[in-house]
């Protein structure tokens, strides 16, 4: 059994210029990523009849919403039979999964999926001021956190990490090994933001943000956009790249959408999503060749390692002790591009992009030095999670 009856495939990907404070708008970046993805697939914009994005036009400051589907549709004059965006979905790739379902059911043929951020530029213009400088009150999901000084995901996710460390003995040094591995890989990625090697001393001596997270446990706000073309399989023959199958996908959320009420604080929605994904495929964790796992915080990557079953629950510390488990030349390379920790917070889509270019063997110097056919992609943290198993035989 395959996701949406094997009718949806990935045919192209593209990224804009990526960097810190590059001074371009989120829309401009989205357009550039879209142009590159469409060309990469061997299509033209006349072929694009669907468009999907995360998060859509939500109220947010600091460059979180780089561009909406309407922005990109209008800029290129797209004629679409289907369009969607949303934030109440399974991680940042939720609407990409919807795009697969849309092409599978005939509502569109080639869907442009994208995520654009310009947080580095926007925050340079004063996001800290935006947090406290406006006469607003905390409402909605912020109502029960902001008044207590719990302003940042570093606080909310830091609490999960602390409890896991308390239960299972995970250490800062073990998290550091994952962070250093990401930085090493980023050194091979010309698009990555931070490429200089990092030592354990660098990691441990960086300023503390919210224990147990130091500066390098937190990803780096970036400017950049990523686009992915999801196509109906019958329309994907003869294009520029061999179509990548979405072998399986997981979008489950079995508990409340909450940052503090999950029954087991040592798991996250990633565990629900991955469990639901494995129920739909004959592949198992042992079949996976490499993984691209959301690392908005280092700890979130460790949760995906567990959620996919690459190690047992509670055992991610010992897993991290042995770099053979996850380095580029190891058994299960993780985040060959450097993840969001070193390559920039492209907010989920960067992991899909990397999985695809690795499967297509287009990753250049950071290409995994073994045959790769099956990639696990896990995106999101806390109550947000979506995942895919991508297959290119």
């Amino acid at each position, binding site marked *: 059994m395959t996701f949406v009856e094997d009718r949806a495939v990935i045919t192209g990907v593209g990224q804009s210029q990526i960097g810190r404070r590059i001074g371009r708008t989120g829309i401009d970046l989205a357009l550039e990523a879209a142009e590159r993805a469409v060309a990469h697939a061997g299509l033209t914009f006349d072929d694009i009849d669907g468009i999907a994005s995360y998060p859509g036009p939500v109220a947010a400051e600091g460059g979180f919403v780089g561009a909406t589907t309407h922005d990109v549709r209008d800029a290129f004059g797209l004629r679409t039979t289907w369009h969607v965006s949303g934030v109440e979905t399974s991680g940042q790739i939720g609407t990409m999964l919807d795009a697969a379902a849309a092409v599978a059911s005939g509502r569109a043929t080639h869907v442009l999926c994208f995520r654009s951020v310009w947080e580095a530029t926007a925050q340079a213009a004063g996001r*800290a001021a935006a*947090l*406290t*400088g*406006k*006469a*607003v*009150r*905390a*409402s909605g999901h*912020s*109502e*029960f*956190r*902001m*008044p*207590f*000084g*719990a*302003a*940042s995901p*570093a*606080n*909310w996710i*830091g*609490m*999960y*990490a*602390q*409890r896991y460390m*308390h239960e299972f003995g995970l250490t800062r040094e073990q998290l550091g090994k994952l962070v250093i591995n990401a930085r090493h890989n980023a050194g091979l990625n010309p698009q990555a933001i931070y490429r200089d090697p990092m030592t354990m001393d660098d990691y441990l001596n960086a*300023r*503390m*943000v*919210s*224990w*147990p*997270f130091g500066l390098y446990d937190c990803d780096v706000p970036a400017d950049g956009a990523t686009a992915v073309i999801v196509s109906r399989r019958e329309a994907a023959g003869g294009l520029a790249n061999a179509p990548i199958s979405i072998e399986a996908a997981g979008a489950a959320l079995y508990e*409340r959408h909450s*940052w*503090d*009420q999950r*029954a087991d*604080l040592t798991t996250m929605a990633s565990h629900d999503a991955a469990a639901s994904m494995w129920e739909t495929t004959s592949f198992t964790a042992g079949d996976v060749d490499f993984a691209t796992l959301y690392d908005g915080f280092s700890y979130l990557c460790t949760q995906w390692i567990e959620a996919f079953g690459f190690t047992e629950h509670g055992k991610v510390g010992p897993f991290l002790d042995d770099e053979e488990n996850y380095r580029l030349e190891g058994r299960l390379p993780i985040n060959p591009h450097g993840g969001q920790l070193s390559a920039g917070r492209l907010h989920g889509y960067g992991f899909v992009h990397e999985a695809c270019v690795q499967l297509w063997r287009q990753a250049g110097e950071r290409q995994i030095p073994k045959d790769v056919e099956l990639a696990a992609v896990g995106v999101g943290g806390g109550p947000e999670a979506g995942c895919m198993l991508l297959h290119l035989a």
Partner: protein
Amino acid sequence: MADPEGRMLPEVTAESRAFWTGGFEQELRIYRCQACRSWIHPPVGACWRCRSRDVGPEVASGRAKVAAYSINHHPWFPAFPPPYVVAAVELDEDPSVRLTTCLVDCDVDQVEVGMAVEVVFDEQDDVALPLFRPVMA
């Protein structure tokens, strides 16, 4: 500024009014299902366990235990000079119900999972924020 104190206060709703104002009477008011007697947080008009709509605030003991914490070192708000402890505390009435809060009167190096804490209210404008402090032996 959000207010002269440099903090972000909650927008009080019909459901959350009891939680945010109970502290003026020294009461921690938490929603409770009148059908299955489960406690519910954040307050909302149904019990997620039994789906009863017969829910409303009751007074909880204000005793809790630290379930998880993070020692924040970043100056997000002028009213919260770092370091300070953000914690999820579980109610003694039902440990599955947690409040995200800030610990006070507490050495940041002294916090641990399972530590007994009690509510103390910080009155700010029209709300009384339920903070928690270690229970003195």
